[in-house]
């Protein structure tokens, strides 16, 4: 029986017996997640990482508005019991919330009351290395909850009980492979990519049967011998060339294509892996049935700056020269805002413009989008090279958002930061850092006269122009939620605030000081007709690392308390 049939049967049973009967038969009332529901998520739910397959981070709910946001108050909170970077969105299906945390926990909670339904915690190997101690959330299908783990497993849990249904060992963590992303579910496949770009892995995206966990396909992001693009690598560099994939893909059901952003080439300096290095720092279109690569666009060739372009482009249609373009929009770590066209036959460059000061690209080919570099700003062995934006780029992993009502794209950017790297080759050793730099000589600096770093930017997709920007003194690590009520929600700063902005004007309309820095992906949902906004607060990983670098060059010490809490807010009547 296919999942779809199962779901139909479940729906029929619900119709006949009513929800009360179902609840009596099992610990909680749970609505199966069907493919249809994933394609058209109800406004009251948040069924996947970014709320919809287009990756908008948008909730159509409109109860909370710029006028009443000042009355937002916490309704409940929940301690996760762990420190480090809490980045996962609360994912909600008809009143049941699923949240992942660092150290591989999953909580199922009553989304209205905050009561715990179940908790899963994977026992992690004692010798695990966690370069990025985080997890970015679950995926849902049928009555299963999927989580990809930091010790390289893919696990399916029973949504009602948290029991492990299957646990697939995907890779060997001892060789530097680990997972932090929320899986993508489509066409009865669960899909994940691998992290490890700093540990000399060879990246891939892999699809698994959603019912059994059996591997269906595996597609390397570095082509092997005989595959197209293999000749863009020199010697054996492809074997340890990185190109990790660590954020959830977006999906176009019409084209049957998933779009994955890919990471940096390894080690960092480009002269250690001469060539364009496909498909590093690219977006690749993968057929979800077969895993075949149907197209790609490489944002920048021979990456030398640790500019992962793992953020997945948002599927936004826009008008260009009087024509509607089925677009892919990507504010890149390389500091350019890229607009591409998604087609059955591949991905086509449309245009690109810098959204932060970018001193590396000297021009962009107007037809292909291929950048030309200032060679003095390209890190290499034996030279000290300074480049802006720095290695965390113009925008790192925190996802941008798109609001179809304002037609604005919201970008959590970092401006005015530069990095200095000194390239130094070192042999590859399995599972060890493989950066190719003289680490103690690495530093970060701020551009002369800079008054701020963080910028929440709004870009008008109708005109291609920046509509407004809100600045923050320090680094910004805030994933975006935008809503039908005309708001943008974002945390991401070291002052522990979670904020709401008027989506049209950029005016700040509310803020709330949480327990820690908010680097979680916010979500919005409704239960019994009440709209809620949920987010995890829990500072760590790269937000903390950037802060440490800032403190070093400023000779300051910034304490941001750690420890995760799930917060749920609503408007007080």
């Amino acid at each position, binding site marked *: 029986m296919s999942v779809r049939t199962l779901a139909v049967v479940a729906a029929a049973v619900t119709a006949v017996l009513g929800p009360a009967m179902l609840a009596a038969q099992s610990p909680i009332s749970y609505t199966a997640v069907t493919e249809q529901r994933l394609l058209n998520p109800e406004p009251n739910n948040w069924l996947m990482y970014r709320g919809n397959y287009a990756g908008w981070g948008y909730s159509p709910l409109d109860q909370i508005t710029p006028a009443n946001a000042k009355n937002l108050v916490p309704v409940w909170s929940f301690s*996760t*019991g*762990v*420190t*480090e970077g809490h980045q996962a969105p609360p994912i909600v299906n008809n009143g049941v919330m699923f949240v992942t*945390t660092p*150290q*591989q*926990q999953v909580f199922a909670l009553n989304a209205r009351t905050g009561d715990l339904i179940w908790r899963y*915690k994977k026992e*992690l190997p*004692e*010798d*695990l*290395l*966690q*370069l990025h*101690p985080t997890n970015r959330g679950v995926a849902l299908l049928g009555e299963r909850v999927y989580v990809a783990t930091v010790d390289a497993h893919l696990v399916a849990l029973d949504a009602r009980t948290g029991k492990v249904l299957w646990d697939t060992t995907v890779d060997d963590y001892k060789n530097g492979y680990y997972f932090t992303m929320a899986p993508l579910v489509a066409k009865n496949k669960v899909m994940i990519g691998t992290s490890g770009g700093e540990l000399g892995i060879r990246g891939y995206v892999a699809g698994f049967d959603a019912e059994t966990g059996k591997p269906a396909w595996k597609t390397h992001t570095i082509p092997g011998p005989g595959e197209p693009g293999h000749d863009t690598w020199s010697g054996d560099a492809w074997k340890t060339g990185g190109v990790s994939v660590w954020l959830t893909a977006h999906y176009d059901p019409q084209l049957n294509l998933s779009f994955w952003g890919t990471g940096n080439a390894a080690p960092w300096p480009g002269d250690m892996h001469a060539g364009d290095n496909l498909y590093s720092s690219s977006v690749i279109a993968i057929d979800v049935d077969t895993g075949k690569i149907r197209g790609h666009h490489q944002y920048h060739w021979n990456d030398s700056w640790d500019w992962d372009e793992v953020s997945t482009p948002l599927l936004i249609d826009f008008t260009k020269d009087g024509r509607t373009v089925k677009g892919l929009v990507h504010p890149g770590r390389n500091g350019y805002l890229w607009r591409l066209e998604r087609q059955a036959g591949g991905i086509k460059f449309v245009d690109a413009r810098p959204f932060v000061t970018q001193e590396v690209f000297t021009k962009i080919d107007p037809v292909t989008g291929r950048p030309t570099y200032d060679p003095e700003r390209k890190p290499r062995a034996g030279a000290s090279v300074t480049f802006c934006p720095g290695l965390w780029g113009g925008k790192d992993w925190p996802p941008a958002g798109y609001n179809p009502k304002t037609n604005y794209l919201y970008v959590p950017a970092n401006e005015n930061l530069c990095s200095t790297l000194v390239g130094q080759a070192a*042999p590859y*050793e399995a*599972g*060890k*850092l493989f950066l190719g730099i003289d*680490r*103690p000589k690495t530093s970060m600096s701020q551009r002369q006269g800079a008054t701020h770093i963080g910028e929440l930017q709004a870009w008008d997709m109708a005109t291609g122009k920046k509509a407004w920007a809100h600045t923050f003194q320090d680094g910004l690590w805030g994933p975006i939620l935008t809503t039908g009520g005309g708001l943008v929600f974002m945390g991401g700063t070291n002052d522990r605030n979670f904020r709401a902005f008027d989506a049209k004007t950029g005016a700040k309309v509310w803020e709330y000081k949480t327990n820690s820095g908010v680097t979680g992906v916010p979500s919005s949902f409704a239960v019994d007709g009440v709209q809620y906004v949920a987010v995890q607060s829990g500072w*760590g*990983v790269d937000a*903390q*690392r950037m802060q*440490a*670098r800032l403190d070093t060059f400023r000779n300051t010490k910034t304490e941001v308390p*750690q420890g995760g809490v799930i917060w749920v807010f609503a408007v007080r009547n």
Partner: protein
Amino acid sequence: MTRQGWSPARRDVLRLALGAGLGFCAAGRVDAQDAGARRARPQPNDRFVFAGGLRKNELVTLADLPPDGPPAVTYPMDPATKIVRDESRLNQVLLVRLDPSRLNSDTRARAAEGIVGYSAVCTHTGCDAWDWQPAAGVVKCPCHFSEFDLKNGAQVLNGPAPRRLPALPLRIVDGVPVVGGVFIGRPGFETGGG
């Protein structure tokens, strides 16, 4: 095969399997002993070998540990069997030679000719690469920038690490550093969350 009784064919298969199994067991015991020795934490009298790099598995001598570093990342080795205890990353030991007058008294008591030994696995989330600051006698973990003062029992000076690196007492035997005790504290990190 069905579950009806024991057919002769099945018994033969079983006997064969048992016989082969015994053979495997004998070989397996040696392997298991080796695996146990490779997994065991540093034992008194163990020598040290380089954990990686061009001199991987070569014996670490006093000449390899110049005053003020840099530190060497090593694995302990059983001196009798020459088994290197590299089955677990958590067995890695950081060795560095410092001026004994700069060490606090506890650290000096564990040191041998100024050489101090610590777990080479960061107590934050388990990285095992280190950046050396010779003037301060401090190692910095490049993963999230925790800093440990090797002069003072690897006390945490900065960064997210919750506790010091476990110390390992050392002695000098036949002109090489050897393990003088067991780790003081548990190497590795805690995942928290109960």
